[in-house]
């Protein structure tokens, strides 16, 4: 047992002392934040483009329907024919020309109206114009059925469904978004960890093989001990990195709260009040920032951090033993491609299933299935967990089953990987095929 400890210690120190580890630990959060800011900035720049649309309206309708907004402004042409209006639109380099002819009925006008642009019109512009027409047409049709404009206005009023859980807890839409965001972030983090740290394990095995130190070590320790020590040592390094991130993130959070002058006590009392359905909508005094912060603290954060650790460790153990077996099977990193793709596939699948299905329906059959299947459960389950455990969240039996399945799979995969590893580390000069790997299992 003490040999295993020695190996774990060496692998851990080798990883943690590595310059790239230090750089990655401290630089990547900064990069991440920088990336988010950059994306937000670019989106802003992209959206801030204002499109000018010329309107040639020969009809008696639509005289005040086209009003400039933030993203579209309308220029109204008068007393021009269509040809001249087109020339003018082009020469002024407006985005497009909306032509509304004069006919004897609104229906006909709408049918004949057309929108000219240089190339395909951007989706939201045509949508906006279509909506104006639809609105006008609806009012016109209803009027013909005897509905007055005033009555029409009351018909058109928006409706917000009041949502709540059975416990009486307010189910604010913001919370769902927050859940999706946090769950997605955790799931994504696990995938990145598995790919990055699995890669570390694999490279470390290849390094031992190419430097031939494996020949020296293998006479003192069992291959299985060496593989396990390597995997555990590397995962401890990963957890160290994660702990540093959590610590610095909470530090940053506290600093941010202080800077924004948000009182945690007030927040806590707000939290208590949310169980009262009457009090839950953000009051006007609360800033939007405070609202989001409050929602964030409404999440089962402790559960999330603990289950992240559990799922990360188990998922990582499964995947990195596969990575270790691959490292043992090949002679250099370029040969690993054919084997790595099938490993990354379930991870990608988990992420996509998570984003497209789990967020919309966290407890639907697809979400449940993928959060039980051991190769995808670390990611998918974490995407479901922000909803909590038990009533309204993930049923406890599903959580337990998925962890048990993970443990069983882990044992089976490690057993298989160790067999490949044992043979592979002492094989040189051959690029193995899947069939050969299968043969190694029987040695």
């Amino acid at each position, binding site marked *: 047992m003490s*040999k295993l400890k*020695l*190996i774990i210690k*060496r692998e851990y120190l*080798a990883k943690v002392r590595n310059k790239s580890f230090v750089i990655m630990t401290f630089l990547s959060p900064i990069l991440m934040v920088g990336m988010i800011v950059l994306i937000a900035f670019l989106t802003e720049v992209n959206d801030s483009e204002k499109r000018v649309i010329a309107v040639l309206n020969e009809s008696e309708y639509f005289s005040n329907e086209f009003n400039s907004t933030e993203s579209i402004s309308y220029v109204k042409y008068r007393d021009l024919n269509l040809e001249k209006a087109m020339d003018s639109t082009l020469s002024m380099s407006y985005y497009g020309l909306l032509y509304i002819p004069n006919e004897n009925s609104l229906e006909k006008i709408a049918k004949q109206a057309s929108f000219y642009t240089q190339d395909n019109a951007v989706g939201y512009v045509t949508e906006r114009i279509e909506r104006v027409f639809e609105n006008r047409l609806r009012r016109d049709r209803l009027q013909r059925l005897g509905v007055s404009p005033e009555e029409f206005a009351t018909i058109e009023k928006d409706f917000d469904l009041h949502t709540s859980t059975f416990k009486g807890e307010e189910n604010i839409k913001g919370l769902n978004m927050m859940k999706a965001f946090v769950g997605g972030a955790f799931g994504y983090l696990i995938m990145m960890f598995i790919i990055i740290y699995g890669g570390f394990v694999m490279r470390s095995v290849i*390094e*031992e093989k190419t*430097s*031939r*130190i494996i*020949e*020296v*070590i*293998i*006479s*003192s*320790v069992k291959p299985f001990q060496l593989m396990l020590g390597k995997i555990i040592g590397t995962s401890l390094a990963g957890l160290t990195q994660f702990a540093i991130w959590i610590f610095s993130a909470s530090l940053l959070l506290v600093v941010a709260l202080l800077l924004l002058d948000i009182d945690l006590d007030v927040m806590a009392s707000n939290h208590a009040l949310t169980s009262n359905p009457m009090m839950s909508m953000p009051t006007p005094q609360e800033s939007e920032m405070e609202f989001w912060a409050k929602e964030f603290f409404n999440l089962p954060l402790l559960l999330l951090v603990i289950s992240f650790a559990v799922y990360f460790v188990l998922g990582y153990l499964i995947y990195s033993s596969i990575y270790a077996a691959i490292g043992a099977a090949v002679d250099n990193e370029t040969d690993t491609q054919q084997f790595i793709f099938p490993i990354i596939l379930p991870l990608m699948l988990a992420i996509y299933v998570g984003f497209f299905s789990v967020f919309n329906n966290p407890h639907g059959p697809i979400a449940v299935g993928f959060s039980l299947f051991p190769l995808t459960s670390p990611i998918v389950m974490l995407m479901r967990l922000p909803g909590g455990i038990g009533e309204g969240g993930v049923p406890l039996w599903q959580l337990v089953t998925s962890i048990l399945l993970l443990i069983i799979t882990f044992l089976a995969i490690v057993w298989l990987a160790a067999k490949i590893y044992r043979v592979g580390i*002492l094989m*040189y000069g051959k690029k193995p095929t899947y069939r050969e790997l299968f*043969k190694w299992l029987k*040695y």
Partner: protein
Amino acid sequence: MSHILVAEGVSKSFGNHVALSNISLEIPKNCIYGLLGPNGAGKTTLIRIINQISFPDTGKVFFDGELLAPHHIATIGYLPEERGLYKSMKVGEQVLYLAQLKGLSKTEAKKRLKYWFERFEIGDWWNKKIQELSKGMAQKIQFIVTVLHEPKLLIFDEPFSGFDPINANKIKDEILALKEKGTSIIFSTHRMESVEELCEYITLIHESEKLLDGKLSDIKKAYKNNVFDIGLQTEENAESILKSLNGSFQITHSNYNLKENQFDFSVQLPSKDTSNILSKLSTLGNINHFKETVPSANDIFIETVKSKGQ
């Protein structure tokens, strides 16, 4: 018990490839035992079985009278042919790590390392990384790691590869010194010069089978074929001498030095009996040397492997 290692009918195959077939060996204590054979003969497989890296399909291995078991690993030292170290790890840390893996405590390992580092005059390497050292330097570190835990049995696989002649000599002296201290040594190689110098016993493995084994001196005796090198100081014409000898003896090659009237030749005798040729030679001139040729390990190696191939 006079044997450090006994193998009984050890066989091993990988898929369809037979690596060892029915090998039996007895390696006496406190000697240097040469494990010889061409590349791919099965030497490394045998060594890996002794080190319990792989396990025989059939047959048994006994270490110091006991059936080979995991705890014996701590009393075996193995220097593999293909060897290396962690490149980015410091020398001191690395040797301590490897020594501890062999079961030494940290303090004991440090004490012994100090002795060896002073002996090889490499004390100032402690904080260097392996990638800063030359190949020969790294080999020295590996030698130290192999012997540090004072094993009963040492296995050296091509120990001199990577050393310059001076350092190779140093390592050879260390190996002999370890033997003097009572260590048993298995020496695997295909370099025959070092076999002649070091080994008392040898075994020859070829294509997974043992071709011969035993004491090197006995094997050599068995391989003697009554060839003698003879030097003759004579006034007589070389051709007439050849003529007079060729009738009754088989001369393999000859050389006549005119200036010094020196005639050197080798002769193949039909039996061990030398009286016949000696009496004949004494009539022709003065004999200045008469020596039975002993086959070198190299000759035996090549001859045995060749005859097996036919």
